[in-house]
């Protein structure tokens, strides 16, 4: 039984370029109010465009409104319901936070305004830094990175800069190995590579945790600069040996970087700084609920120990006492050991406003309660599906749980098919085929933003699909059945990529191209 949704009509809508009508426009500007100079005299002809921006669409304001409103109805979104993408933490995005980010005093503020005239903006950065330091137990914070992978790159570069300073360039050159578990997100090795490290992969145990013996073996050669670890890991399991893991790496002269993608399992419960972690990135667009916007913007603050603080990107926001003893917020560029800037200006500031609003509206108790609810919901799903789907790791999960298609694949029904069929039941699918070490993985993260009723609907849907896979596999293999388009031919799309719209050539034009 599909209980969450009913099919309804879906509007068709062309590409805007196909809707274009010469002469239409949707803007309104006042007439020019200064004395006009002859254009050729101020901008020489050779610098001017001569194509009239042809091909750009000409449409009215109403056309644009209808265009995007119709297209919007083709999207699934958090506001429609549970969005259980594992490791993505798709939680509710408070509209209050949106309102805060649009306050004119922030939205109209130029990033190069003088410090004295931007005190409120700097205060927001400073306060958020303080709270993130408290939440992670790591006192050095930079909000400059624009997303998780950017924060990772920053963290890994900090490790490199620290080792260069500690060992000297020559000795440091011997330490160019970054250890990364085989369960890690692909951004980890990509970020390590960008920082000039060679990646070595650590095996996971049958239990789904980092293999300590393999870690020790890899740490025995004196070439390890660090370890990049996600905790809880991407299997949703807390690395309970985290202290020992950090000790092994530290004893080998390396540092521990933690990927904070899964901090939604820990906020208010445990702090990476207390576990021995040296540097971490957070995802404000996951744990701190800034909206994901169909693929960003994100924000990936980097938090580190006191020892690593001198290496954080510049500028840093600090305080000093003003003339009347009031706190003055300043931009401090004077960190000669800093890795440098990772982005122009100060980071994705609009996301900082939203994240600070999230922290302040939750308060100390609310932050912990959110974590508890996120873990409880994942455990509830784990309990509800364990008899119908193979759960490859016995341990109880934290905020997300991994299942596989092992039981269903005997009938030829695979993870992709289960995911597509879930769409017919009105749910966005879970993360599929990740982590890579679990064959046919389905990684489910409900977050705290789902009530029991919808969790039950989700569990019922998944169990129903498991039955369908046995009784009517074709139904699952051909899913989804209710969407405006079916599965797309991605192979042809990749073989002959069409990455932009182009005007159709008229017959006369195409003839002339053919003969030229």
């Amino acid at each position: 039984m599909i209980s969450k949704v009913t099919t309804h009509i879906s509007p068709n809508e062309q590409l805007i370029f196909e809707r274009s009508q010469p002469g239409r426009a949707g803007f309104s500007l006042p007439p020019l109010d200064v004395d006009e100079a002859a254009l050729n005299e101020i901008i020489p002809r050779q610098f001017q465009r001569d194509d009239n921006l042809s091909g750009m669409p000409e449409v009215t304001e109403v056309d644009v409104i209808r265009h995007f409103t119709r297209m919007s109805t083709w999207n699934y979104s958090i506001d429609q319901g549970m969005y259980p993408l594992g490791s993505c933490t798709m939680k509710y995005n408070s509209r209050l936070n949106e309102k805060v980010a649009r306050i004119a005093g922030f939205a109209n503020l130029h990033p190069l305004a003088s410090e004295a005239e931007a005190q409120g903006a700097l205060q927001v950065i400073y306060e958020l830094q303080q709270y993130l330091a408290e939440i992670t137990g790591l006192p050095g914070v930079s909000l400059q990175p624009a997303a998780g992978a950017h924060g990772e790159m920053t963290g890994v570069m900090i490790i490199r800069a620290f080792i260069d300073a500690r060992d000297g360039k020559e000795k440091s050159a011997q330490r160019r190995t970054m250890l990364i578990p085989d369960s890690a997100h692909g951004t980890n090795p990509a970020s390590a590579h960008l920082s000039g490290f060679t990646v070595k992969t650590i095996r996971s145990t049958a239990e789904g945790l980092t293999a300590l013996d393999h870690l020790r073996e890899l740490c025995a050669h004196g070439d390890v600069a660090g370890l990049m670890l996600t905790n809880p890991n991407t299997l949703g399991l807390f690395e309970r040996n985290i202290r020992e893991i950090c000790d092994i790496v530290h004893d080998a002269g390396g540092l521990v970087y933690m990927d904070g993608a899964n901090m939604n399992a820990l906020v208010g419960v445990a702090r990476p700084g207390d576990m021995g972690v040296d540097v971490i990135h957070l995802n404000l667009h996951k744990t701190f609920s800034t909206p994901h916007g169909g693929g960003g913007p994100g924000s990936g603050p980097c938090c580190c120990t006191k020892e690593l603080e001198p290496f954080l990107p510049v500028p840093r926001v600090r305080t000093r006492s003003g003339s009347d003893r009031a706190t003055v917020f300043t931009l401090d560029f004077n960190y000669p050991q800093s890795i440098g800037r990772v982005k122009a200006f100060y980071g994705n500031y609009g996301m900082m406003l939203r994240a600070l609003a999230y922290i302040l509206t939750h308060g100390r108790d609310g932050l912990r309660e959110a974590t508890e609810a996120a873990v409880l919901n994942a455990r509830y799903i784990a309990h509800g599906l364990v008899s119908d789907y193979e759960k490859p790791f016995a341990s109880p999960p934290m905020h997300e749980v991994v299942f596989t298609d092992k039981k269903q694949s005997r009938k030829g029904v695979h993870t992709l098919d289960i995911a597509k069929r879930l769409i017919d039941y009105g749910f966005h699918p879970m993360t599929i085929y990740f982590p890579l070490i679990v064959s046919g993985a389905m990684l489910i993260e409900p977050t705290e933003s789902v009530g029991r009723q919808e969790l039950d609907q989700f569990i019922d849907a998944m169990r129903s699909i498991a039955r369908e896979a046995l009784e009517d596999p074709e139904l699952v293999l051909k899913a989804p059945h209710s969407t405006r388009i079916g599965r797309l031919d991605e192979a042809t799309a990749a073989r002959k990529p069409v990455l932009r719209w182009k005007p159709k050539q008229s017959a006369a034009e195409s003839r002339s191209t053919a003969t030229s």
Partner: protein
Amino acid sequence: MANVPDNLHYSKDHEWVRVDGDTAIIGITDHAQEQLGDVVYVELPKAGESFAGNESFGSVESVKAVSEIFTPVSGEVTDVNESLNDEPEKVNKDPYGEGWMIKMKMTAPAEVDSLLTAAEYEDFTKAEE
């Protein structure tokens, strides 16, 4: 069940070799293309490049995976199947024929003897599963 022609030699990285005098014609096996799924892009070297045995000479991409391909023998590339640029799907449709990838002039033809026979390769792929 994947097709494994008798008259070819095979590597453990799932390449096949057809020997023609001192020339080796190289491609990937039917088993390999099945595992990869729809091939969307094949990256190959240029004629004139030299490779040692068991060296990466290119890659095969499907929609969501990429695999390196390795030289089963050493030598110099004499010809490259340029038609795969436009029709990489030939690797799926005809892996031992039109889906061939490179021709090499072997510098040590005896290396072929250490490759797997069809029967050995079939056993090898079964053991891998």
